[in-house]
């Protein structure tokens, strides 16, 4: 499931691609670059606009996501106050999309943070301590990489009552592996740098060195991989919800909306195409932006 791999990204490797890349993070940006910078980051803007809509829309719409309009079951788009129509039991589609996006992103951010914390703790410890401990810890990560993890998560969901808290703890615990690998590599490289050696020579306790000198230096890379973890998590969450094992009614998520749409697609194709399209748009934008960040920092 973890589609990320510790390989260099394809973009920016070939001759000629590099020029546009150096522009966005050159230390002294000249004025004309500013406009280009904004248009280059359109995926980020799409995501931000979607987040803003998901936050604001529920307050503006006349319908809530679980409210049933008995007079308008399976209403087509632009009928009355239902901009995107209603679903098979008369709930407003736009309101459901906004609520679903909200839940999906909330789960994604929370789970990505869990993976960040676990990954940094694991990777930094392995990289800092080194030797046999490092080898054992990274072997463990390698072993986990090869496991059918999704199935263990599915079992967890079935067993512990499918609460939303468990959804993101479960997913976060699955998605920390790449983070741990990356952080370990960074820490190992940093450990030999003069300023760290100096701090050690000055008798600074290791924990202080890690917190004050190592972590700030790996923040950029960690952020890039955090950004790449978010779409992974969105995918896992939607996958679980699609199977009916993730977020539960009355809460909704994009995965649940896709599932409902797929079940009813012969009657109202819009029910599948809207949440499906929105989910793909989110995933694509997050992935592009994450890969760009990763290329800058690695």
């Amino acid at each position, binding site marked *: *499931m973890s589609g990320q*791999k510790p390989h260099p990204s394809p973009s920016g490797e070939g001759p000629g*691609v590099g020029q546009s890349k150096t522009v966005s993070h050159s230390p002294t940006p000249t004025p004309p670059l500013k406009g280009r910078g904004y248009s280059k980051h359109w995926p980020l803007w799409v995501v931000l606009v979607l987040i803003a809509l998901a936050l604001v829309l529920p307050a503006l719409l006349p319908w809530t996501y679980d409210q049933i309009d008995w007079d308008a079951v399976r209403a087509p788009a632009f009928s009355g106050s239902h901009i995107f129509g209603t679903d098979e039991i008369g709930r407003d589609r736009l309101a459901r999309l906004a609520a679903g996006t909200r839940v999906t992103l909330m789960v994604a951010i929370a789970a990505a943070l869990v993976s960040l914390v676990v990954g940094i703790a694991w990777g930094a410890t392995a990289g800092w301590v080194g030797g046999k401990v490092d080898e054992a810890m990274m072997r463990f990560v390698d072993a986990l990489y*090869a496991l059918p993890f999704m199935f263990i998560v599915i079992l967890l969901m079935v*067993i*512990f009552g499918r609460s939303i808290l468990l959804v993101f703890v479960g997913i976060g615990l699955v998605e920390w592996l790449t983070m741990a690998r990356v952080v370990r590599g960074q820490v190992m490289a940093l450990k030999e740098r003069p300023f760290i050696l100096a701090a050690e020579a000055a008798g600074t306790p290791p924990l202080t060195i890690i917190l004050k000198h190592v972590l700030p230096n790996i923040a950029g890379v960690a952020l890039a991989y955090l950004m790449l973890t978010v779409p992974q998590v969105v995918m896992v969450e939607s996958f679980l919800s699609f199977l009916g094992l993730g977020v539960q009614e009355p809460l909704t998520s994009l995965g649940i909306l896709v599932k409902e749409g797929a079940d009813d697609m012969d009657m109202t194709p819009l029910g599948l195409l809207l949440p499906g399209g929105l989910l*793909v748009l989110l995933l694509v934008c997050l992935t592009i932006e994450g890969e760009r960040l990763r290329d800058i920092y690695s």
Partner: protein
Amino acid sequence: MTAIPTLLAIILASFFLMRLAPGGPFDGERPLPPETQAALQTAYGLDKPLWEQAWLYVSRLVQGDFGPSLVYRDFTVSELVAQGLPISLTLGGLAITLALLIGISAGLFAAVRAGKAADKTIMMLATVATALPTFVTGPALALLLGLWLGLLPVSGRGEGWSWLIMPVVALALPVSGAIAKLTRAGLATVLKQDHIRTARARGLSETKILFKHGLRPALVPVASYLGPAAAGLLTGAVVVETVFGLPGLGRYFVQGALNRDYPLVLGVVTLYAALIILFNLFADLIYGWLDPRMREG
């Protein structure tokens, strides 16, 4: 030789996870009388201590006995698995073949056109492809090709092979995107190396350089991706089988987990884990073939 301990660890972890779950396989709509419950528990050996059950399960498994299904009462798990496995394997096998075909050719083409519009377009498409979840592409394909155009069967296995097309395409798309990127990146690094420059200096044709000297070492990252790809395909197969109503392993897994059919779930998990481990071993072999330096280690 970590394959067998890993497999055992997965089996035991799944075994105890299943048993921690509230509810049991015999909780129906109507509660059974306590005597019947107890009799069923004894019949299936569920009243013994957990450790003993785990030991019994593993020792039978070694002899190839997956035990009876608790919910599909007339079937053993082996019979159910024998039904489902060929379907899942066909789906997965065809999907990985298709993904390798599309991915490697797209990556190759992009690398040859490095920096040009074709390169950028292909890489953009590859990124989009990696972000296409099976549970969206599956229903979307069914809607477009099945319901609207009426070209392919929407669900189940119809006549011939046409029922395989949509599930396999939905499964292969994200994997092919990832493979295209890896191939492109691998080639970009390899083509800068000395032996390629030597080959060029000796006047070899570009085609020969690319296919004879460039592609093989460039595919090493692709080989290391095969393990995760297999895991991803199996997960995707769960969705695809649900969406297209195919009686593969994935469906049995989800149904089994929901119904607390312990032996069925364990059987499927064991098989999945074994498949993934096998695939990783296979990837290691390919690794050695692609890069002779790897054979030493």
